[in-house]
């Protein structure tokens, strides 16, 4: 299926690894020019080199903190300078930190009873402000073209809080992102811009493996016990492949998906039971 993405200009935050990289790869494969942004230089350079193989001349990378509106503005400016006006913006920023050695400083994991209230402010900056800032910077380009695709890699907790996990921060902030997107979608529908949110389930990424390892250490279980317990709760009995996530995002960015907007769509193997 030709998705009509030839010549489109896309930005993917968190584009060097995992889900973001799978999205960047698939958008590039459909003919888009892709700017990937992430904090760490080394994985970013590695990802750019790998993506250049499939899309010579259509890949760029900028190291930036996408939770900071100034970082977002710099990436958008660099994208315009390299490829032209932005037509696709995929926001993919992690929230609370599992392994601070790998992920740097950030809000922590925990339940409500243990969470200091300032952490809600930090998580809001990570998850909400990052998604808002990327959309906010790109909307003028999209309005000028009469075409745009905005997509956020959210989480299933936006619809159903994961109260059995130490996830109070995303439990509280993710629904706010979904709501902000829903309103944005309604207000931008007349401009040919769609705004959608992905309710991510358990996707097999490097970060996800760190998460299971961390959770095992917290609960005194083995890695195998923890993953077996969680997999048994997923109707399809396995984790998702990042490409299964990326394929939905790529479809939502397509010409064909022009009438799908304001949606929060799960990619979770059937985990979310909410109607």
């Amino acid at each position, binding site marked *: 299926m030709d998705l009509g993405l030839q010549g489109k200009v896309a930005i993917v935050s968190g584009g060097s690894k995992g889900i973001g990289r799978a999205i960047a790869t698939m958008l590039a494969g459909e003919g888009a020019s892709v700017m990937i942004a992430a904090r760490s230089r080394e994985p970013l350079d590695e990802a750019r080199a790998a993506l250049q193989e499939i899309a010579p001349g259509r890949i760029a990378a900028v190291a930036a903190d996408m939770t900071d*509106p100034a970082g977002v503005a710099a990436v958008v400016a660099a994208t315009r300078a390299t490829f032209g006006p932005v037509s696709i913006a995929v926001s993919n920023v992690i929230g609370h930190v599992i392994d601070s050695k790998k992920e740097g400083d950030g809000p922590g994991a925990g*339940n*409500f*009873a243990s*969470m*200091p*209230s*300032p952490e*809600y*402010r930090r998580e*809001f*900056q990570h998850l*909400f*402000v990052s998604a*808002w*800032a990327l959309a*906010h910077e790109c*909307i003028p380009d999209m309005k000028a073209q009469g075409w745009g695709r905005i997509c956020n890699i959210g989480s299933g*907790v936006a619809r159903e*809080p994961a*109260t059995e996990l130490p996830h*109070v921060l995303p*439990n*509280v*902030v*993710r*629904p*706010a992102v*979904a*709501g*902000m997107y*829903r*309103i*944005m*979608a*309604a*207000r*931008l529908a007349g401009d040919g811009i769609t705004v959608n949110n992905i309710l991510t389930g358990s996707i097999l990424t490097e970060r996800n493996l760190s998460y299971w390892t961390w959770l095992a250490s917290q609960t005194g279980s083995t890695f195998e016990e923890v993953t077996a317990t969680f997999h048994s709760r997923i109707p399809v009995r396995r984790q998702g492949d990042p490409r299964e996530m990326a394929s939905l995002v790529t479809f939502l960015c397509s010409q064909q998906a022009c009438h799908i907007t*304001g949606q929060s769509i799960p990619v979770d193997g059937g985990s979310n039971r909410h*109607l």
Partner: protein
Amino acid sequence: MDLGLAGRSALLVGPDDEVAGACRRLLTAEGARLATSVDDDVVDIVIAHGVTRHGSQVLAVESAEGWHTAWNDVVAALDVFGRALPGMRSRGWGRFVWVGTAGSRALDAELPGQLDEVGAVTSLAMRAAQKVIAAEGGAEGVVANSVLRGGAATADEVAAAVAYFCSQWCGYITGASVDVTGGVGSGMF
């Protein structure tokens, strides 16, 4: 109906507006007393609400600071909720009520400028927080619910729903949101 509020102490968080006033009047009429501080006082009930920004628009927010100002309502409420929770748990009884906007249920049902869009966003976060608190506090008699104001609801009508959610009868309803909207809004959920 005896709401069982005699001797219970209630704390209000948020602006001192007509909703706060109506809640204070009704709760004290039902025999509750008003607490002044979550740290220096026994607190059985916390009622929180944010600043109402009639006609606020998501696309009109121009800076991260603008969002953080609105988000302060959430942080302030959760800060007090978190401080009140240990005492409620140890006493085996507690009530948290968030008074938000029904716009958080039908996010795009109205035209720009008719909805408090920013309030809808923060209300969603608080409704989710209430579900988390419901899960964490349920075993120890702590329940957490939301009252969503919309349509032409008066402050007294909102306060009546708040008082019910604070009552002795509201022990099995938790993590819920109820609309006080006069039937405005057509969404199923």
